[in-house]
């Protein structure tokens, strides 16, 4: 990820003269590619991601100030979705029947909608029409209150974004669990377990769940990585001060270094999530 001369040529047409010059100096596109890369990596090691030309500030500093809000939204929504989705999927699959299938098709439809559209509709309904929740931001600006009031305020601001995120993150987790468990349930060894006269409880936990969990976890990790893009959009709609709003500013102002920094930080987030899941899977089933 560095800038080539041709990229710069494109930027020349969209950037103001002075920014362009400082930018050119920083990235030095006239030097050979290998040297540019070396400079870039050297800067990266020092957490120097360059400097944004929209904010006129170091990119690393801007991102550091915003990432907390994004992490808050992502961990809260992901935990709620997983804690609801896995038991729901397991039970729906075990019962079989139509209920699970209908729920699945509703979820399928919900899942395919663009996240920001869903967010706009919710904002319209709950903020502008019924005035239940604040329409944007992470906290009331200029509020001078004690820690308790402040936390209540933060929670109030994040309820709607979290609900929307759960709505888009839950369906894939539910349908994943449902599908994997429904398939495991059809496995010959589950049927054999009945012929051995095992109890329903044992079959549910020791046979269906135990054999489904590794697959569920190894696929859920992908769902979590997909979820990050949802978080970015919800933030934009609710002007939540996280990475997503930053991305919007960077994209619409063609703030190249900032975009690059966001790309890096989301990639880093993905790597961390992957690592966490690998550890969990190892713990659940040593065979994988």
């Amino acid at each position: 990820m560095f800038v080539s001369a041709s990229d710069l040529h494109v930027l020349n047409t969209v950037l103001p003269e002075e920014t362009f010059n400082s930018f050119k100096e920083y990235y030095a596109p006239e030097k050979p590619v290998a040297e540019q890369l070396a400079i870039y990596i050297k800067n990266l090691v020092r957490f120097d991601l360059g400097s944004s030309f929209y904010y006129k500030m170091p990119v690393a500093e801007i991102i550091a100030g915003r990432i907390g809000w994004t992490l808050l939204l992502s961990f809260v929504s992901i935990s709620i979705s997983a804690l609801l989705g896995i038991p729901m999927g397991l039970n729906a699959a075990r019962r079989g029947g139509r209920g699970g299938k209908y729920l699945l098709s509703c979820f399928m439809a919900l899942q395919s909608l663009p996240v920001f559209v869903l967010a706009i509709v919710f904002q319209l309904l709950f903020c502008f029409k019924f005035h239940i929740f604040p329409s944007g931001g992470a906290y009331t600006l200029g509020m001078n209150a004690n820690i308790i009031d402040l936390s209540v305020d933060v929670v109030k601001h994040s309820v709607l974004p979290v609900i929307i995120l759960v709505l888009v993150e839950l369906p894939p987790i539910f349908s994943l669990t449902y599908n994997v468990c429904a398939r495991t349930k059809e496995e010959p060894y589950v049927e054999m377990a009945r012929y051995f006269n095992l109890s329903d409880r044992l079959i549910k936990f020791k046979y269906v769940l135990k054999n489904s969990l590794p697959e569920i976890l190894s696929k859920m990790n992908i769902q979590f990585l997909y979820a990050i893009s949802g978080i970015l959009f919800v933030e934009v709609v609710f002007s939540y001060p996280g990475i997503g709003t930053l991305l919007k500013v960077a994209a619409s102002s063609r703030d190249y270094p900032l975009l690059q920094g966001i790309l890096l930080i989301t990639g880093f987030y993905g790597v961390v999530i992957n690592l966490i899941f690998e550890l969990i899977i190892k713990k659940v089933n040593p065979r994988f």
Partner: protein
Amino acid sequence: MSKKIANKAAWAIVITMLSVGAFYPFISPYNAADFSFRPLMDPSTAHLLGTDEMGHDLLSMLLAGFRITLTIALAAALISTFIGTVLAVACAYYKNWVDTVIVKLTELFIIVPEIVVLLFFAVLAKPGVYNTILAIALFSWSKVARIIRAKSITAIEKEKIQYTLLLKGSIWHVLIKMWRELYPAVATMFIFQCSKAAVYESTLAFFGIGDPLAITWGRMIRTALNYEGIFTGGAYLWYLLPPIACVCIFVVALSVLAYDFERE
């Protein structure tokens, strides 16, 4: 029974939308580029959805959006499904390092969200419909590759396909032989990619990166949201909701179709 009705309805919706996209000049009341009307009119018999702040007729813009949005969706889906399928079959056929490289590449797209990469490159590229199609197609094949690869790897282990390998069949022979096995998954992925491309198009426009001249649903949503008074009056009802509804109906209809294919 109800499933069949849902399926038929979904087909009807998709076909209607495609024909609107193809024939919109005949049904559109005005030229979509015409901004000579009085701005911000409420809906009336002359302007069923009113006009925007520039003086465009909103219904004409919505209808024009069918063509470009659907073209982008279909073209991008076609290209990305093709790329994904060929790479997936290559994984199963060549195994070893080819497989490793392609898998690493798809993993990269999972770790860095497609949409962020897409935004990154869309910012660099010259805005335009072709570039939008290319950007979406080139950066959204990873899911196709991942899913079709899993199918291909089980399919290539089937004895009827192993026979072709034993005769030293080329990758194309194997692809043709496997097509019967892969077809449902490929069809599902194509429909899925269509809906994803429509979503990505509107997302790009929402971030202000699409073609500034092309009229798409995504761009309508963006201009509507940029308009300060959108939520104060009733303007959102005829300005913001129609393009949102179009995107949603299109995407949901496709997901019903994809769901049906998947289970066969």
